[in-house]
């Protein structure tokens, strides 16, 4: 018999949701054949079969959250006896055994919301050390955008609601991850939001001209390019504050994160090296990323490495917001709905196509004046798209 257990599939996960079984009871499986789909806080992964045989028992219902080390299914192997588990599968401890750790280390783990029993100690006699805990805590703090695969085929059935009964939604997976990151960002970064109004008339005209020429390019592609150009002039917003080293790290690439609303919640794919791409390329890539995000097909590299984030909420309709910065970045700019508004131009009231932008920034790293200057530069490039084109390399 071979017990297939949930093992740490990376990044020190402590638990996961069982989404789906690719096999059924009594079915024959080959070594390395995918058996189970598991969702962690950050990703969805398939657990391959550690051996060949017949599925004898499926122990955990899909939709259940289980901790690392839990036996999920049992395979009757061809060899009959126990099959050595692949090296990548950590040995699980008997249920009664506890990891070795001092009370202080245990306290540290609790404070960092780490299940110490799932840690592998590096201290004497395998004791979990403070460093083991802090190392994992630091990893968990890493601002890696969420990646998720399609939701389980079998979604948890809606609980029949009788009168007076409250309905609950499971607070886990991406929702929980978003919550964690929002709290962390707001707790650590002193947010300040600066607002500006951008006249979109010329850009819209330009887009229409392009459209007539057979090139339909979204406004967001222009925003991304303009943002990257403005960031070049104000590199402090394309930076990360390294508190430990007491330095502000100015990034060399302009990797723009795009806040995307997906069925499972907010996700931020990253458009890498915007400075090397044309507006057309940006448009194409952005479309792809949006699609992948909605279908949960984003790769790890497409979810990491962002240096500045934009949130294009305009299509949903909005006039202003106080966006939360994608920690540890320094700034985030949100674009709101473009509306026809009366504006004064050359002493006359005319109809302008106006859009509000909200620029949140880390006030530890930059001040209001810099944020205004940065936004003005962005505004200039959008209000005069020819300038944007002229300044392109």
């Amino acid at each position, binding site marked *: 018999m071979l017990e297939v257990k949930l093992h740490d599939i990376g990044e020190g996960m402590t638990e996961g949701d069982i989404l789906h079984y690719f096999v059924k009871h009594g079915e024959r499986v080959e070594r390395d054949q995918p058996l189970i789909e598991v969702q962690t806080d950050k990703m969805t992964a398939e657990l391959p079969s550690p051996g060949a045989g017949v599925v004898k028992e499926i122990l955990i219902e899909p939709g259940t959250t289980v901790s690392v080390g839990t036996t999920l299914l049992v395979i009757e192997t061809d060899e009959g006896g126990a099959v050595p588990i692949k090296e990548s599968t950590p040995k699980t401890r008997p249920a009664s055994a506890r990891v070795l750790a001092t009370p*202080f280390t245990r306290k540290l783990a609790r404070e960092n919301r780490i299940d110490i029993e799932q840690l592998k100690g590096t201290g004497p006699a395998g004791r979990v050390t403070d460093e083991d805990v802090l190392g994992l805590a630091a990893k968990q703090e890493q601002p890696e955008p969420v990646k998720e695969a399609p939701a389980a085929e079998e979604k948890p059935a809606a609980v029949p609601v009788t009168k007076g009964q409250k309905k609950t939604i499971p607070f886990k997976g991406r929702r929980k991850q978003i919550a964690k990151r929002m709290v962390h960002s707001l707790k650590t970064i002193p947010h300040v939001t600066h607002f500006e109004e951008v006249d979109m008339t010329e850009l819209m005209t330009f887009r229409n001209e392009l459209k007539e020429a057979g090139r339909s390019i979204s406004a967001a592609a222009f925003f991304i390019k303009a943002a990257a150009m403005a960031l070049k002039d104000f590199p402090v917003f394309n930076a990360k504050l390294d508190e430990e080293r007491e330095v502000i790290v100015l990034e060399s690439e302009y990797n723009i994160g795009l806040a995307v609303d997906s069925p499972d919640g907010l996700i931020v794919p990253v458009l890498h090296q915007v400075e090397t791409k044309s507006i057309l390329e940006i448009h194409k890539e952005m479309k792809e990323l949006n699609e992948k995000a909605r279908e949960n097909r984003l790769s790890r590299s497409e979810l990491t490495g962002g240096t500045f984030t934009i949130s294009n909420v305009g299509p949903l309709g909005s006039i202003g917001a106080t966006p939360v910065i994608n920690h540890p970045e320094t700034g985030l700019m949100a674009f709101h709905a473009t509306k026809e508004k009366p504006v004064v131009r050359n002493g006359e009231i005319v109809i302008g196509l106006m859009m509000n932008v909200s620029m949140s920034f880390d006030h530890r790293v930059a001040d209001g004046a810099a944020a205004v200057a940065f936004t003005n530069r962005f505004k200039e490039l959008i209000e005069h798209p020819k300038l944007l084109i002229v300044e392109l390399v």
Partner: protein
Amino acid sequence: MEMRVKTNKLTMVQAVTDGLRTMLQKKEEVVLLGEDIGSNGGVFRATEGLMEEFGEERVMDTPLSEAGLMGTAIGMAINGMIPVAEIQFLGFIYPAYEQIATHATRIRMRTMGKYTVPMVIRAPYGAGIRAPEIHSDSAEALFTHMPGMKVVCPSTPYDAKGLLIASIEDPDPVLFLEPLRLYRAGKEEVPEGEYRVEIGKAARRREGSDVTLIAWGAMAAQASKAAEKLEQTGVSCEVIDLRTLYPLDKETIAESVQKTGRAVIVQEAHATGGLANDVMGVINDTSFLYLRAPITRVSGFDVPVPFFSLEEHYLPDTERIIQAVEKVIHY
């Protein structure tokens, strides 16, 4: 305004004499009694000259009967006097134990607070001066187990006088332990006249961040020596001198251990049933979650204090303390 206090450089035993003299002068109710404390000045000369100064009615020689001496002191105390009884060595107190355990410590409770027993029992104690059997006993735990009596134990001349005055003024019986080894171990500036060291307050002898050394009496000095040596190897020890063994200063113990995360308790008494175990209890109750290593004890062994040729092996020395510290640091 600057206050100038006149001080004298005194040994611990001289500080004790000074404290007794101060209180004999201050309060007529204070009387001293004990074996050979009068014309002979006591076995360690702690009462030297006091009989001449204050007369036989206030500094009394008693027969060689510890039980009788203690009973007399208790009788005097409940009748308005403040007796300071000297037991020549703590190891000689056993015949008086019954008087202390069943009377001195219980009268206040027995009379629902109508009578208190304001007396002090002075008792030199501890090993390290090559005394014969029983003379070196470190039996403080027999008394800290007994509610109704305070137990204090200075480790410096300054504390000896200040704690003695506070003990004489205390309404309850106080066992005043004087570490033999420190009687003449060094001199310190001791203020003239009255001052008090509060009973129930430990002293932080040294600030440190890696480990807390908790000790009292002669071991407090030993712990400080070990801390000095450890400092040279980069280990920062905080040294807490308990000074009062009952009631314990739980706050200071907890505060220090919570800061350092490690504790080594040094006691000269036998390991089993010693006060170190109570200190461990305090740490467990207050600071468990802060511990980075098991609380460790360095103590005498579970044998009677041996004769002088083996005495040094029995007593915790700096080397044993250093080993214990290294053990908890590298746990």
